[in-house]
């Protein structure tokens, strides 16, 4: 019995030294196998129990069991110590977080579409639908139905690209007013974004191909105040809460009363420093586009009763808005879509 105890003591002593010496998980596992494994020293001692007299066997078993339990405990504790040490050394490491990121290919929406999207989202929140339509349109939708008969001086303002005697590239998105009203009965609440074309010489402020966002609200009881309300809200959506919006009388054959819509120049904010502002040319305002109450002749053309229904429409240039919104120096950049331009403004 004492012999077994002595042997065990010796084993445990060497075991403790080995555990102490093990400095990683594998070494610790090797220690476990060497002592507690299938042919480990303690296992061998246990096998020796069979040679003892039966009355001693029980005690011997208990002694070994206790020793094994203690050794397993020691192994676990040593394992945890090793793990703690590993964490410590891992956590002691720091990296240079300022190192350039590993970038995913940068996708983006064109700034013009982004403006269109945000504008449309604003109107959709207020119950409008968004419709799109063709770019090549008969003159009927572009002019005649919009109260601009042939020979009307206003046709000059729409210097257009003609494809045939009757078909042209739309110089504005207003044909969608007619298409929508002819298809649906009032109430009508739509925005219609899209590409338009005018035979304008291209320079830093003008494009021959540009995008407009058209809006139309026709129902009973719709008035000019509603137009002011919605467009003021739109400008605040795009430029911030402090944005002011100004409506100036103007002339469009398809609206009466008509208004030109300006908003405070986002660059100079219309402050006295505005005189030097190259964005608004010193006026403190930038032009958004035209608007007004739908002309009774237009309502009549689509079979609506102008005595009963009233409505407003507007159309503004998305690139023009983009100039102001993103501080772009030259409107042609929107069409060039150069990689650097998209990388800076693409969102």
């Amino acid at each position, binding site marked *: 019995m004492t012999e077994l105890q002595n042997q065990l003591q010796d084993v445990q002593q060497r075991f403790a030294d080995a555990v102490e010496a093990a400095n990683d998980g594998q070494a610790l596992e090797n220690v476990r196998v060497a002592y507690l494994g299938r042919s480990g020293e303690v296992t061998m001692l246990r096998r020796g129990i069979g040679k003892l007299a039966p009355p001693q066997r029980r005690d011997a078993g208990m002694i070994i069991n206790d020793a094994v339990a203690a050794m397993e405990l020691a192994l676990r504790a040593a394992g945890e110590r090793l793990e703690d040490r590993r964490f410590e050394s891992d956590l002691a490491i720091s990296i240079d977080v300022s190192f350039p990121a590993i970038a*995913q*290919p*940068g*996708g*983006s*929406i*064109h700034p*013009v*579409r982004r403006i269109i*999207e945000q504008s*449309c989202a604003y109107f*959709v929140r*207020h*119950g409008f639908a*968004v419709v*799109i339509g*063709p770019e*090549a349109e008969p003159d009927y939708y572009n002019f005649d139905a919009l109260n601009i008969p042939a*020979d009307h*001086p206003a046709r*000059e303002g729409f210097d257009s690209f*003609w*494809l*045939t005697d009757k078909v042209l*590239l739309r110089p504005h998105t207003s044909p969608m007013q007619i298409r929508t009203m002819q298809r*649906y009965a009032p*109430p*009508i*609440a*739509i925005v219609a974004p899209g*590409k338009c*074309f005018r*035979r304008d010489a291209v320079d830093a402020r003008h494009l021959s*191909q540009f995008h407009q966002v058209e809006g139309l609200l026709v*129902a009973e009881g*719709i*008035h*000019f*105040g*509603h137009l*002011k*309300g*919605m467009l003021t*809200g739109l400008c605040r959506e795009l430029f911030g809460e402090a944005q002011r919006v100004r*409506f*100036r*009388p103007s*002339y469009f054959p398809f609206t*009466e*009363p008509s208004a*030109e819509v300006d908003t405070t120049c986002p660059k100079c904010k219309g402050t006295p420093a505005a005189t030097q502002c190259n964005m608004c040319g010193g006026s403190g305002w930038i032009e958004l586009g035209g608007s007004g*109450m739908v*002309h*009774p002749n237009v309502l009549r053309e689509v079979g609506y009763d102008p005595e009963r229904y009233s409505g407003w429409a507007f159309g503004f240039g998305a690139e023009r808005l983009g100039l102001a919104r993103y501080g772009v120096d030259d409107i042609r950049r*929107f*069409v060039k*879509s150069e*990689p650097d331009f*998209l*990388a800076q403004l693409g969102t």
Partner: protein
Amino acid sequence: MRVPISWLREFVSLPSDSAAVADRLAMLGFPVAEITERPKITGVVTGRIASLAKHPNADRLQVAQVDVGDGTPLTIATAATNVAAGQTIAVATIGARLPELTIAPRTMRGVASAGMMISAEELALPGEWFEDGIMQLESEVAPGLDAVAVFGLDTAVLDVEVTTNRPDAMSVIGLARELAASYGAPLRLPSFDNPGRAAEPPGKEVTVALESPDCRRFVSQRIDGLRVGPAPAWMRIRLALSGQRPINNVVDVSNYVMLETGQPLHFYDAAKIAGDTLIVRDARAGERIETLDGVKRTLNSQALVIADAEQPLCLAGLMGGASGEVGTATTAIVLEAANFDGPRIRRMSSELALRTEASSRHEKSLALTLTDAGAARAATLLAGFGATVHAPRAYGMQARDAAQITLKTAEVDRLLGMQIPTERIEGHLSSLGCAVARDGATLLVTPPPWRRDLSIAADLVEEVARIEGYDQIPAVVPSVAPHEISSAEYERENQLSNVLQGLGYREIITQSLRNEGTVEVRNPLSEEQRFLRESLLPGALEYFAEAGSPVRIFEVGETFADEDPVAERSILAFGFSADPIEEPNWRDSEFLRLKGDCEHLLRRVTGRIPGVARATRAGLHPGKTAVLSFDGREVGYLGKIDPRLAKRNDLRRNAYLCIVDIRALPSYETPTYSPPSRYPSTYRDLALIVGIDLAAGAIEEAVSTELRGICTNVRVFDEYRGPQTGEGRKSLAVRVTLQRFDATITDEEADAAIARLLEAMRAQFGAEIRT
């Protein structure tokens, strides 16, 4: 239109701040493009040269005694050569500030000079438009006046934009009327009574024959006894400030009256009229006229002319001819104040590529009454210069009162969303010249003759709003009633864009007008933009070529094909350029990447995976192109850009593009869920050696069919070609996942299934097993 504020002030009192006046005009619908402030000039007074003597010590100098109205003449030495005793001139006195200098006392060759007689240029007027030397004023001007104030040299000039519906406002009086109405200030108009009373003396009558209905009215007036010379300073200065070069007192009157009243005039030298009739008629084909700008023009019958017995003297509404021109020898004129059909003048102007101050007014169809007013003003001014004016003769249509418009006052509220008391509505309309009669809540409104743009109630509502101020209308957010209109098309476009953005593509917008296509623009801006694009591919190629590095891009846009009517399609194009990578020539990973993005995109917007099959398409590599389809219907295609096309477009990299016909895409199909098996799966990897043309897709399909019920996934995950596979053969690595839904699949079962599968592959495709 350039309008000096000082000229406006002749008719209406205005605030001193020019920006405030400009702002008011803008808020009335006449935006001011530019405010040209005048330089600050002080100390310049009118003076009269009492005497002039030779300078005692200098041959080139003279010494003048100049009366500046305070009793003590100023002694002024001058080198100017156009001075004489008795002249009225402008004098910069000691301490005066001119744009370029300040006047101080100085001694000129021993003579103390107390000021300087000045030129137009020194008053910041265009010197080349005025006489050399000292600016001459007329003798009616009293000495001692502040010249800057008298001639309005201290107030800004506004460049006012006038919309096409308001030719009445293309005049100083027209704009003054608007300002008067807006400020509630009285409008002081000149008299429009024609001073010409007596008929022309016998033999001097010139009559007018209107042979074209496009001349609606013609007022003619004979004026004799003219002495052509410089116009008075006030008139020359006003013209110059308005951007009009002074010519002589007769020509200047026609320009002055046009700017003041808006009625263009033309003067014919009476001595140069052949015969005694001015004929307004269509030009004869091939007829020639040399216009005042020195251009010899050949006309066709589209042109409207005013001719004498021999030749055209004037292009109606545009410009006079050299043959009837008023010159220094002119002593008598026939005045024309005519009204022409606007569209006719516009067509003529654009056909002859001749746009003038006159045509820009006539083309908007002026009011008939303006002819009489214009003639009266011109006659008055010329009579003021000592001419003899005879009674005007009028031809053509008589002005009639405009039709009465009924305006229910409730209509103002209905359209504006603002209640304005009836008295105010009445007041606003009256201030603009309307005759207003009240009948309860209804106003009967007769617009003034010059407002041809007012014809319906809504027009009057706008007038009321303009005078009330658009800024006074309260802004209200409407509540929009429910409606049936769908946003589906827009949403799909947006969704495509957003998914591609997520996949790392950047959206571009390129030119729709290009140098190739089948739909031609009749009036292109340039040859480079003669056609509508038939495809988005050329724009993408151009972009790839211009980008300095590999790029991933997409565009959503319309393409056009020559059908009747023009066929327009909404197309999505996306793709990338990439540097070549090391891989065997029978493999193209970039194509597969594009295919992956394509499947992901279409899955997102349709809920389904498209069919992909080999095909050829123009512009794409014939061996690396596939069409995309749903239910056998093609929706687009993808592939590598044909290397020959790439070279022609200076592409330095490989490029891949996918084209999708947006409207051909099926609508979104909601996926249904099928729960996975609860039992474990096992897999077997097979290496099948097959013919080189056998598609991986065909193997996958055949495996699925063969093992239906116990196979949950088949995937070809590698391809190898080489000596081991033999000529014309390739090895495909296939992972087959085996799984049952009712029990755990056993190894024996799996092995048996694979054995069966291999047998089938051998039979079906001649496949060998590679070990």
